[in-house]
């Protein structure tokens, strides 16, 4: 069975700068894949290539089995794009926007009207359908933006940070819509900076960094692959001695300055021993928190904490 989205060794350059340097991944029907990466990693370039807006310099990509860019027109018929910008006409009403984009998706007459009505219901804008978009809140615009991309019930849905700046209610509605589409069989590629969002929605994660796939897999796989261990965060009444953890196996101090300590746990059974050792050293534990490794930890572990503010063409486009 072909993947709904198949990307193989895609290379894209902007002049001398390499935006994508041999990216390979796939998204199956009904699967939500989170596309993560810092600024300039190549996420927007990747989405633009898959959206048939850009052409790759090397490698192959298919959408719904249609090879790009040769079969771009056929690919567009199964493709839904939700760009990062709220790409709607502000002076038109929600209905007018949806009706126009339905026509541009190839829907006509009754099919278009039905699609518009369905989309309005899904995003919860029936009550404001006749008002100009310029009067909408950011969340409403985001929802309408999503609706414009799913009018034709695409088999492949590309979303580029669709929840930027939205209220929690709108965010939940967008999540629900995306999940519903995926459950209905759509392949969803979801580009985001938000690790929690990706971890919550995505069946799998593709982490891009500097134009390459830094990691791919489920969140758990990524965490496991990163070999990250849980950490105990302690706050004590007094500073602990320097050798207070010496006798405890499966634990080591990562940070022990001041009235607290961060302890890396390789064996969860050691937690009790850590607490005892802290009490024995006269620290007096006031607070205790166990932090399991998350996608964000993986992200930072793989991409580092350095800022990625270089202004690349891909960044400019995003």
């Amino acid at each position, binding site marked *: 069975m072909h993947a709904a989205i198949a990307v193989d060794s895609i290379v894209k350059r902007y002049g001398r700068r390499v935006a994508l340097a041999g990216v390979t991944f796939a998204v199956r029907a009904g699967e939500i894949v989170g596309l993560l990466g810092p600024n300039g990693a190549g996420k927007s370039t990747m989405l633009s290539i898959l959206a*048939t807006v850009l052409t790759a310099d090397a490698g192959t990509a298919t959408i719904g089995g249609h090879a790009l860019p040769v079969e771009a027109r056929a690919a*567009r018929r199964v493709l839904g794009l939700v*760009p990062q910008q709220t790409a709607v006409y502000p002076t038109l009403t929600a209905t007018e926007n949806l009706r126009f984009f339905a026509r541009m998706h190839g829907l006509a007459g009754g099919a278009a009207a039905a699609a518009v009505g369905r989309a309005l219901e899904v995003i919860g804008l029936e009550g404001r359908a006749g008002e100009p978009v310029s009067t909408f809140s950011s969340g409403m615009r985001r929802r309408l933006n999503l609706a414009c991309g799913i009018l034709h019930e695409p088999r492949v849905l590309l979303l580029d940070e669709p929840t930027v700046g939205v209220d929690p209610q709108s965010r939940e509605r967008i999540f629900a819509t995306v999940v519903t589409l995926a459950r209905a069989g759509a392949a969803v590629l979801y580009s985001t900076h938000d690790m929690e969002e990706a971890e919550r929605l995505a069946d799998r994660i593709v982490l891009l960094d500097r134009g390459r796939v830094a990691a791919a897999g489920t969140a758990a796989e990524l965490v496991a692959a990163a070999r990250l261990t849980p950490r105990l965060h302690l706050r004590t009444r007094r500073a602990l001695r320097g050798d207070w953890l010496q006798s405890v196996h499966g634990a080591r101090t990562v940070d022990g300055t001041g009235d607290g300590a961060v302890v890396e746990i390789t064996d969860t059974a050691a937690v009790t021993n850590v607490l005892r050792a802290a009490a024995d050293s006269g620290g007096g534990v006031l607070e205790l928190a166990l932090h399991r490794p998350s996608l964000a930890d993986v992200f930072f572990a793989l991409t580092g904490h350095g800022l990625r503010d270089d202004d690349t063409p891909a960044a400019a486009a995003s």
Partner: protein
Amino acid sequence: MLAALRAALAKDLRLLIRDRAGLAFLSLAPVVVISVAGFSLAGLFGAPIGGYVLPLADEDHGRLGRVLRSGLEEDAAIEVRPVADRDAARALVRRGAAGAALVIPAGASAALRAGQPVSLLLYTDPVKYLEVANVRALVQEARQRIEASGQTRVRHRLAAARHDARAARRRFERSARALRRAVDGLAARLAAARTDTERRLTALRGESSAAVARRAAVARGRLAAELAPLRQFLDELATRQRAFADWLTEARARAGRFADRLPPPPAPPPVPSAVAALAGTDATVLAERIMPPEELELPHVALPAVPTLPALDFPAFPELTVALLPGSVDVAEASVTGAPRRLNAFDQNVPGFSVTFLLLGMLLGVSLGLLDERDWGTLQRLRAMPAPLAATLVAKLLARFLVGLVQMMALFAVGRLLFGVSLGPEPWALVLPTAGIVFAATAFGLVVAGMARSRDAVLPVGSIVIVTMAAVGGCWWPIELEPGWMRDAALALPTTWAMRAYNDLMIRRAHVASVFAPTAILLAFGAAYLLLGLALFRRQTLGRS
């Protein structure tokens, strides 16, 4: 406070310096407008415009034509082009090769010499107002020179005639003085003769009076002696008649009652009246009656002979010099198209500013519209949709094209209703150049959208280009105001062809055929802009994605 003010000032200056579009608008735009307006309107302030061709049809082949031509050729701003006849001259103006053509009608020189008014004919193209005005001024100047030259010739002739007259007058005065002397001598001689005659007559009158007096005294004496007895008899007779009457009265008184019976006495014979008159007449009177004084002859007086008058030799006056004032030279103007010679300024301004605002509308509608699509992200979304992007572009351009057409037609209607502009003999023909310029403007909007990197760059770039196109193309003032090189350069602008077509239809009152070529050129401009705009827009859109 002061620190904040300083910081804010520095910030705003920094913002301005880094706003290239704004800087261009502040600096480049005024320079462009100043340059365009300065070069275009230089002719109004006396700068030589040059390049005028004046077809001259000399049907007179006389002195007037030669003088006019040489006078006009002295002006470097004009090129006199002799043509065969007035039809050829008119054709050149109608074709637009010249703004005016001069015709010297046959017989003009002869009429001028005869002092009759002469009317030159100036065919004009009302659209080329300034050129016509300049040619008119030059022709009037030449005409005034001709009139002044004629007046000078006449003045010379009159001066010669005055000289001859003065010489004749001097000769006449000499002759008159001689005549006066001769007449004076004659008068003296006549006075002497008269004095002598009077003296003689006086003497003769004395002698004659004395002789008459003497003879009258003798005659009176004789008559008195001769009439004395008659007077005595008559006196005696009268006395006796009175005595008889007394006696008769006495006799009757005595007769008493018988007096009535007395017969009347016999009447004495009456004294004849002539005898009584003779007896009563004075002797002197009788003497004058017998010898009337006029019958006394005076002696003959011999008057002196009349002196002979000298023969007067008056000089002959010279013949009057023929010095007719030359006839006036008038210049009659006629529009080659039959349109009014004075144009309605709105015939120029309504299409001109309509085209300007059409271009501005396209700048805002097409250029900013496309950039908005790009900035909103709708363009990217559309590119990911099955409908071809070209359909979106064509639809946008078509919508703007239709809006532009309606806009232009509405402005023409307003111009007609409010300002009485002419819509030409075939108003529907305005649709052709209008469609052409709207198409070109629409496509030009695409070019600007393809050139401008951002929305902020559209207004400075677009407005500079539009101002230049409108001004140089003759939308704001007649293109004939512009110097020749600028008019040549303007051929590369669609506005020039649009205005040419509108001027043909609305001012020259030409028919639809006159706008076929400009419309075709406008459509060609539109096609070229469309191709260029698509290429630029595609490159820019793809380059940014």
